[in-house]
């Protein structure tokens, strides 16, 4: 029995190693590129032979990149907070209350989540130019909220259905006011779900490229993914590899930290909305 278990364990470690390679090879490659210096940049090696931080110095001295980083962080945090606030309200109503039009709202959220964003680029461009939102923070925040809401509503209402709401009644029986019951009993139970949803919403905003590219025209509101595609090298056709790689690593780090720390919650969040419905 013993050697068989060992063999099986070894086999699984082998399989795990393949998954790790799959996940990390492209990521480490861009890290490696960001660490190469000018002399070895074009050597085609996977591992940098003489690591340097030239590329990082370059992007952190580039005002356009710093501005884009600020835009990315600010826009995504504001969009996430608002989407979570509205999403929590809507999800609570959908999970707990009885009111007309509930079915329609759920269907509408589903439609929005399936929506091809490109179909909105032209009209949003036109509308935002007309009302002065083009190339501003709100001009990106509003579409981000709209496309984050379906995700937030689905995930949160799945979480809310799992909360034992009778506890609230029990707390009231024990003499708690409705506010206290909500604040002390329900809120702590709801927080993990809300927090998980916030991470998922933030990741989806952080990832956006199409809106960032087409609803901005200057560094005023351009986020990092869009700004990266505008980095210019010696000629228009030549992309500055080192700085792009460094910028890529900078915007990847916060997300990878989220994932490493909150893996369990992210998995729960991604699957709850879709499977349990």
């Amino acid at each position: 029995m013993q050697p068989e278990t060992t063999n099986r364990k070894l086999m699984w470690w082998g399989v795990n190693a393949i998954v790790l390679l799959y996940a990390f090879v492209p990521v480490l490659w861009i890290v490696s590129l960001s660490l190469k210096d000018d002399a070895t940049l074009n050597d085609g090696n996977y591992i940098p032979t003489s690591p340097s931080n030239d590329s990082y110095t370059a992007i952190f001295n580039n005002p356009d990149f710093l501005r884009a980083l600020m835009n990315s962080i600010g826009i995504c945090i504001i969009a996430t907070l608002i989407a979570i606030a509205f999403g929590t309200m809507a999800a609570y109503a959908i999970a707990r209350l009885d009111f007309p039009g509930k079915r329609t709202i759920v269907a509408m959220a589903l439609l929005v989540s399936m929506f091809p964003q490109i179909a909105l680029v032209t009209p949003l461009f036109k509308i935002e130019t007309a009302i002065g939102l083009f190339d501003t923070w709100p001009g990106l925040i509003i579409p981000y909220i709209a496309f984050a809401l379906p995700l937030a509503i689905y995930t949160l209402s799945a979480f809310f259905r799992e909360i034992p709401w009778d506890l609230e009644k029990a707390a009231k029986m024990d003499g708690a006011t409705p506010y206290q019951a909500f604040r002390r009993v329900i809120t702590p139970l709801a927080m993990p779900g809300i927090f998980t949803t916030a991470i998922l919403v933030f990741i989806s905003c952080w990832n956006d490229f199409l809106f960032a590219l087409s609803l901005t025209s200057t560094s005023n509101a351009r986020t990092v993914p869009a700004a990266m595609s505008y980095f210019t090298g010696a000629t228009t056709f030549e992309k500055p590899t080192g700085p792009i790689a460094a910028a890529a690593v900078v915007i990847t780090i916060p997300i990878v930290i989220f994932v490493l720390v909150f893996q369990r919650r992210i998995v729960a969040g991604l699957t709850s909305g879709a499977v349990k419905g």
Partner: protein
Amino acid sequence: MTATPTAAAAEAAEDRMDDGTTEIARQRHTDAKRAERKLGLMLVGPAVFIMLAVAAYPIIYAFWLSLNKADLRQPDANEFIWFDNYVTVLSSPIWWTAFGVTMLITIVGATLELILGMLLAIVMHRTIVGRGLVRTSALVPYAIVTVVAAFSWRFAWTQGLGWLAPENSAPLTEFWPSIGIIILAEVWKTVPFMALLLMAGLALVPEDLLKAASMDGANAWKRFWMVTVPLIKPAILVALLFRTLDAFRVFDNIFILTSGSNQTSSVSMVAYSNLIRGLNLGIGSAMSVLIFITTGIIAFAFIKFFGAAAPGSDAEGKR
């Protein structure tokens, strides 16, 4: 009997409501119902308003624009031209090439994602060692910004720079190699998402059932096809529906990898070029509406012919 809003009356009403017989209880019940409805509508209001403002109104506006000339280079020549833009788009080889490319990427991509996603889901579900490690690292491709991953693949295949680039050819300047790399980039990024959805399905398959099948002499392959697949069919269909719709919108990867050169544009890329580079809002909007309609047809086909239950469709009213 009239309901007085004192605490005592409310208490009394609460008591009697259990019987559900007295007038006061019924009165209070209707009031509560009405208050609940009002609260419900108030709570969903902001979310509904934003979704309508950003998605519903603009798509109607896009439809209107698509019936106009709406060329920003000739703003004075704007006129209502009925379906001329659609005729222009639908008789243009550029559109049909892009449509073919998009379909190809969607079908090949979604198939590969389903196969690899299933393998990864089984690994994450079954592994007896390092389960947390595997699940965490599998999330990395999902979490990485698509543009970042696209740049990584682009540099990897760039001649004289990348570790994957062949000696004396530039794959990203030829049609088939470019399509292959675009599909690779798409698949790499989305297999983990697919796998997570499938894994949630796998967790619902009762262990006993698999054991029973095993006792009856079914091998692993048979158990997978005869027990697991039928049971997780809903999860497969939902995952596949989401990925198909997502793949049909492919934009980021193509923009970074080839910028649509050598006819590798997707429909989203072509529509984008007409807006930003061509400033032709009429043609761009006609394409947007066509993409919107195609997406609708795909979703409808999935739900109608494969019986994919859209998530949430059976969830309303569950309390």
